[in-house]
């Protein structure tokens, strides 16, 4: 334990200030390069992801029918996508019949405008928020702020991120990159009325957050949430959480707005029996999350008396159009894929430059934005993987992320009208040129060997283009003075060091 003295500087984590929450910053290799230098973050991440991973394995092994649940979850999602128009219409009718109002938003700007109008109509100047990926994706907090409305994040991790002026780095544990001492510093310097002598004990920190937020819950007139599931058959909306901040937001204010991606619909009430088993065990490694709230429209005298459901496209129909890539829309946001990903574990979430990091982000984000945008930074995301397949094994709805990655890599290289090759395609074409003939490759190798001699045996960190395509992501060991080919060429023909086993010429 340590005692707070003076005003500490809390470093904001992402190096680049995001302008668009769906994708900001440089290409993945460049961002990852910086992230790899942050030893503290990697230590925090390694500890956190390993803990969740072990818990998840324990509780999924408990269920004898885990694989059958995954199969059913996968089948329900595939069916949902095929019938999406009808299910959305059914959902709208069911919510409306129960006194709710359904809005449709083509993109982030439209969704933000709808929410702002509802908040204004309620006469509110501040809102409380349940942690939600959809509202992060559309940059709702920033938009509300520009419109003069203060949005208070109430999830502990989101609060930490908001107070620090930081970005979330994990979809489930957004402050996973911060350790307890950093959090103590953030609270001590940024939270109003923080207890004096606040220590870095997690319980003490959580209680400081409880005290800070309680008054906000009691006075708020409007709450904003996302949803984990929306049932077409009944109009029931479900939010799963742990802390009770979600229940506070979903219960106390008079007006509730839920911003929900169109892919979150599930066909029947019964389908909840599948997802209420898959999601908690996959995400936090618990048998069940502490709290789930389910509501259907408006219930007189119980909970919000005004309910608005905003159905959000924002690129989802673009993803839906790709028959392989659309499986990214099956995602139930459990984050199991990032917790098992060796790339995520080393680079952290910020390197992906998107609210959706990790393996699922690598296939979801570029599709939501459109690969045809030829933005090299976005197009670099499907390459942010070792294709080891751990994400596929962990996914509760069996999204074949490796296959989607390979498919999207191909699209990133070859999409376009021919006259204007994509940015990633241009880069890859240059690499291909260097390796297209033995002669060119031999000269490239000789150049590297020479560079190695100049450097005196140290590792090569940066090469000029097109070698930079390699060294942007990895160091290069210096090469021996002579390549194997050169050595072979200098030997007299017909001799062999192979103790009589075949001719030397076979080695080529």
């Amino acid at each position, binding site marked *: 334990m340590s005692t707070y003295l003076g005003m500490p500087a809390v470093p904001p984590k992402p190096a680049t200030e995001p302008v668009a929450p769906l994708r900001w910053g440089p290409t993945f290799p460049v961002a990852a390069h910086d992230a790899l230098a942050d030893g503290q973050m990697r230590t925090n991440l390694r500890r956190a992801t390993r803990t969740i991973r072990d818990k998840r394995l324990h509780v999924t092994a408990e269920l004898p029918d885990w694989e059958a649940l995954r199969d059913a979850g996968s089948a329900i999602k595939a*069916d949902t996508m095929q019938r999406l*128009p009808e299910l959305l219409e059914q959902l709208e009718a069911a919510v409306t019949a129960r006194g709710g109002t359904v809005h449709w938003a083509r993109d982030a700007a439209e969704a933000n405008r709808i929410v702002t109008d509802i908040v204004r109509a309620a006469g509110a100047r501040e809102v409380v928020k349940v942690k939600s990926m959809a509202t992060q994706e559309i940059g709702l907090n920033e938009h509300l702020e520009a419109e003069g409305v203060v949005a208070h994040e109430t999830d502990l991790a989101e609060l930490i991120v908001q107070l620090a002026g930081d970005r979330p780095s994990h979809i489930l544990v957004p402050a996973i990159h911060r350790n307890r001492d950093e959090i103590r510093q953030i609270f001590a310097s940024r939270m109003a009325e923080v207890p004096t002598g606040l220590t870095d004990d997690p319980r003490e920190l959580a*209680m400081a957050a409880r005290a800070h937020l309680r008054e906000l819950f009691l006075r708020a007139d409007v709450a904003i949430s996302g949803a984990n599931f929306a049932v077409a058959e009944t109009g029931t909306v479900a939010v799963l959480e742990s802390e009770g901040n979600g229940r506070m937001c979903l219960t106390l204010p008079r007006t509730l707005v839920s911003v929900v991606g169109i892919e979150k619909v599930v066909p029947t*009430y019964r389908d909840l029996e599948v997802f209420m088993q898959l999601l908690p065990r996959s995400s936090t490694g618990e048998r*069940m999350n*502490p709290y789930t709230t389910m509501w259907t429209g408006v219930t007189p005298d119980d*909970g919000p008396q005004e309910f608005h459901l905003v159905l959000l*496209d924002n690129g989802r129909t673009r993803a839906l159009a790709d028959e392989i890539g659309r499986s990214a829309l099956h995602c139930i946001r459990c984050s199991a894929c990032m917790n098992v990903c060796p790339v995520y574990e080393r680079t952290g979430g910020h390197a992906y430059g998107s609210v959706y990091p990790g393996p699922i982000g690598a296939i979801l984000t570029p599709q939501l934005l459109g690969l045809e945008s030829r933005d090299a930074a976005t197009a670099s995301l499907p390459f942010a993987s070792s294709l080891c397949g751990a994400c596929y094994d962990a996914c509760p709805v069996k999204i074949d992320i490796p296959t989607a990655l390979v498919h999207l890599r191909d699209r990133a290289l070859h999409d376009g009208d021919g006259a204007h090759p994509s940015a990633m395609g241009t880069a890859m074409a240059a690499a291909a040129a260097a390796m297209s003939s033995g002669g060119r490759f031999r000269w490239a190798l000789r150049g590297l060997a020479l560079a190695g001699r100049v450097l005196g045996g140290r590792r090569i960190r940066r090469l000029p283009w097109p070698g930079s395509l390699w060294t942007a992501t990895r160091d290069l060991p210096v090469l021996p003075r002579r390549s194997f080919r050169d050595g072979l060429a200098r030997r007299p023909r017909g001799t062999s060091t192979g103790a009589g086993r075949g001719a030397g010429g076979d080695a080529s």
Partner: protein
Amino acid sequence: MSARDAVLGAVRSALGRAPGAPGPAPADVVRGYRAATDVAPGSEGALALLADRLLDYRAAVIRCRASEVAATVAAQLADAGAVAVPPGLPQAWLDAVRASGLTVLVDAPGDLLTARRLDGTGAVLTACRVAVADTGTIVLDGGPDQGRRVLSLVPDRHVCVVRADQVVASVPEAVALLGEHPERPQTWISGPSATSDIELVRVEGVHGPRDLRVVVVVD
């Protein structure tokens, strides 16, 4: 074009469907998982599993006979000061609570308790709709003996009475029951409020009740 028509049109187009073309019939989803288990509702196995899961969440579990419920809940609330209750609890429970010197605040239709009033209330006493042994979950669906969602949210202690016959083994069995009234607002509770946001250290009690006590009634 309205946003609604634009989004629905884009969805249809992404699926390669002509405008006005009918959608496919629902797929036949194979549900090879357990719809039920061989653990009977209310059986000793179900009760033991529920208790094990609840203790794992650091909730308290108290077992008693039907004739002892009133005295048991009164004892669990003894130091709470004021106790909020939904309108439909058995009179005998309320009498026992009042007899032990506690103030009982009834959340009656027409005279509802405000959130601020509940914030100064020590505890809440409710029944439940169903409990899931596998996951240590108690579900409230707003019935007269469970009340509005706000009741079990704001006070710091929640004493919840679960009848043995309400304890099912698995999630699908609970969803089948709850699906009889999907329109009712539901709260699924698995242990007290908890967070793991700081270095994944579990801390009980952030915003909801920090103290959950489950009274299991057996005959």
